[in-house]
């Protein structure tokens, strides 16, 4: 099928299947899935400027579907999401500015690539270790360790530190089970997520979801749902910017979304059958996959 906006011929069924896979990952883990969809669209022949913008607007559509399912399941903390949007948008702009500064210095690909590899690898190794320990602890202390309610966190020192920060104003997050937490803790964590979104591209759910769990102490299911809700706002903002610059092929995004819409619902529904540590353990290899893709791009010289 010919897509006249980006001027490429792509099989729409391939796009829909790609959307389905990314939708399942997104609904289950609360990530945008750009680490997979970006390289895939590029390999299907789409110019890279269209890859970035089209992927973002498709992420918005998929996140709407998944977030609605998570809302029905009670997995979205709206107060937390509202505060996080502020930090994400400011962080995203800062990340884009950092990229522009690096472009001027001529070292953008190497610096961004090495940063991505380091960040992804650390998240994957730490997440894998922590969730494995959590599963063992959960098996020893809980009657039904596989129950979705059994959300044990082994490494909670950072979460306790951020929750105890005595900076006003402090708010309660009933949905997340947090009595009091400084708004600045939430803004700081979302700023970091936003920064990496602007710096490394995509929705940065691979950073924000674990950051919510390990730094703020949000239960895994709520972190997944809230992250998806937050992605609608942040990726929506990015999509509008990219569409204005002529980087969005909405037809490709709509076709991909037909697969993603059903995948996102499936992924969201499947979270009911897994406990927090299981979701985190299954999530751990994903950033590593991203790190490998970036490493290959750096080694072969095939940069965006």
């Amino acid at each position, binding site marked *: 099928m010919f897509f*006249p906006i980006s001027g490429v011929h792509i099989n729409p069924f391939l796009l829909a299947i790609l959307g389905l896979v990314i939708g399942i990952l997104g609904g289950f883990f609360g990530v945008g899935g750009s680490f997979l969809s970006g390289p895939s669209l590029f390999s299907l022949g789409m110019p890279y400027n269209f890859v970035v913008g089209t992927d973002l*607007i498709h992420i918005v*559509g998929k996140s*709407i579907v998944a977030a609605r*399912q998570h809302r029905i399941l009670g997995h979205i903390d709206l107060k937390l999401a509202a505060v996080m949007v502020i930090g994400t948008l400011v962080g995203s702009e800062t990340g884009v500015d950092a990229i522009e500064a690096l472009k001027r210095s001529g070292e953008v690909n190497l610096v961004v690539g090495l940063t991505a590899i380091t960040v992804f690898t650390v998240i994957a190794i730490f997440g894998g270790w922590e969730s494995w320990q959590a599963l063992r602890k959960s098996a020893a202390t809980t009657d039904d360790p596989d129950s979705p309610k059994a959300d044990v966190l082994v490494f909670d020192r950072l979460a306790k530190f951020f929750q105890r920060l005595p900076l006003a104003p402090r708010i309660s997050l009933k949905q997340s089970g947090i009595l009091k937490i400084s708004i600045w803790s939430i803004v700081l964590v979302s700023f970091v997520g936003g920064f990496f979104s602007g710096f490394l591209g995509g929705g940065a759910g691979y950073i924000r979801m674990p950051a919510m769990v390990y730094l703020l102490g949000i239960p895994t299911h709520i972190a997944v749902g809230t992250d998806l809700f937050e992605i609608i706002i942040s990726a929506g903002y990015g*999509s509008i910017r990219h569409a*204005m610059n002529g980087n969005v092929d909405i*037809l490709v995004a709509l076709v991909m979304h*037909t697969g993603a819409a059903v995948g996102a619902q499936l992924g969201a529904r499947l979270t*009911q059958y897994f406990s927090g540590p299981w979701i985190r353990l299954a999530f751990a290899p994903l950033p590593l996959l991203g790190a490998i893709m970036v490493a290959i791009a750096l080694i072969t010289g095939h940069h965006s």
Partner: protein
Amino acid sequence: MKEPIQKVLRFIAIELAAYAVLAVAYFCLVLRFLGPWLAELFHEQRVYYVVACVLLMFGQAIGLERLVTGLSYIIRGGKK
């Protein structure tokens, strides 16, 4: 109450099959008519193109979510 995973997976397979048929019809009809109009907007009136992008994506997301929910409801014999 949570359904057994085997039952859920069976329903999912039926839903996917029904959904795929509808998606094919969607490719053939809607995108064929929208394509030239959107391409023209993209080249001639970028601001309207942006508005159309946002409306189409939100509309499709809500529409497909309802469709999938509706299909699931029908396939499960009226159970939510």
